[in-house]
């Protein structure tokens, strides 16, 4: 089926771009919530890449990446939950929901 040959490429491309977009945002955005979102988007990009690869497979749809992505999603949500709580704690402790520009002076 020609359909399935081309469209995974689109998603592969999209996945890569999402990854880089997330990475860039993670680097340049200051707010912690945005950083957390950026990490999630990076992850989505990777998942998309994996699923694209699976869909592109020669021997039909490859179920292993699906399993991997499901696992990945769960891991991502766990990390996100922890990060969000930590963000709130940082906010409560420092009054800012972002990383300070410099570390604590010793």
């Amino acid at each position, binding site marked *: 089926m020609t359909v399935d040959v081309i469209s995974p490429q689109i998603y592969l491309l999209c996945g890569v771009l999402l990854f880089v977009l997330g990475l860039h945002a993670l680097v340049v955005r200051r707010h912690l919530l945005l950083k957390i979102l950026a990490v999630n988007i990076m992850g989505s990009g990777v998942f998309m890449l994996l699923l694209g690869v699976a869909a592109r497979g020669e021997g039909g749809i490859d*179920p292993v990446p699906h399993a991997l992505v*499901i696992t990945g999603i769960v891991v991502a*949500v766990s990390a996100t939950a922890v990060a*969000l709580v930590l963000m709130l704690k940082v906010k409560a402790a420092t009054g800012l929901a972002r990383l300070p520009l410099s570390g604590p002076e010793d």
Partner: protein
Amino acid sequence: MIRRRFALSPALLMSLALAGLLIVVVLDLPPQPGLAGPVAQAMDQAGVGHPVTAVLLNFRGYDTFLELAVLMLAVLSIWSLGRRDPIPARPVQGPVMHGTLRHLIPVAVVTGGYLVWVGSSDSGGAFQGGAVLGAAGVMLMLSLPREMPMPPALLQRLGLSLGVFAFLAVGTAGLLAGHGFMGYPPAWAYHLILGIELAAAVSIALTLVLLFLGGRSRKVRHDR
């Protein structure tokens, strides 16, 4: 505004370079068979009919086991960070909400259960089912009075670790019974997997609710 945040900068240049490289590499990925073939071959011993579920709970059951562990650890990590704040911005309490919930929650429970069960043969499974159950739980949390008496701490913890525990127990049993760690006796595979899935779904649902709540319970002092 947006332009300023994503202004041309070394960071952007480098990101673009990385993107370019990744694109080139990704578009150039060689065709490869993947694991579809081996999975298909092994399906008859998998104990379940759905390949994804087979991979998740049998072939790569260890991954899933550790994934449950990650979830549980996330809750524990959050708990370790302190007690939770009350949930902000509750929807207004009212009959509509109540009525909706009254209908929605049983539906969700049934859907979740179904998803878990159907996972063995078709799309669905513990995570999806658990997620649906968890979503229902979250809504319940939102609708319930501000300080709902939580279940006893031990029960919470038991529920939380149920999935990991079941998985670990079955895996260890397999090891002791000579099927290797995380190995099922082929004859029992289906039942064991279903059992694990159920336990996992309960745990996942509870975990998601607890993640949503964020932090240890405020009233019930279960760790003294």
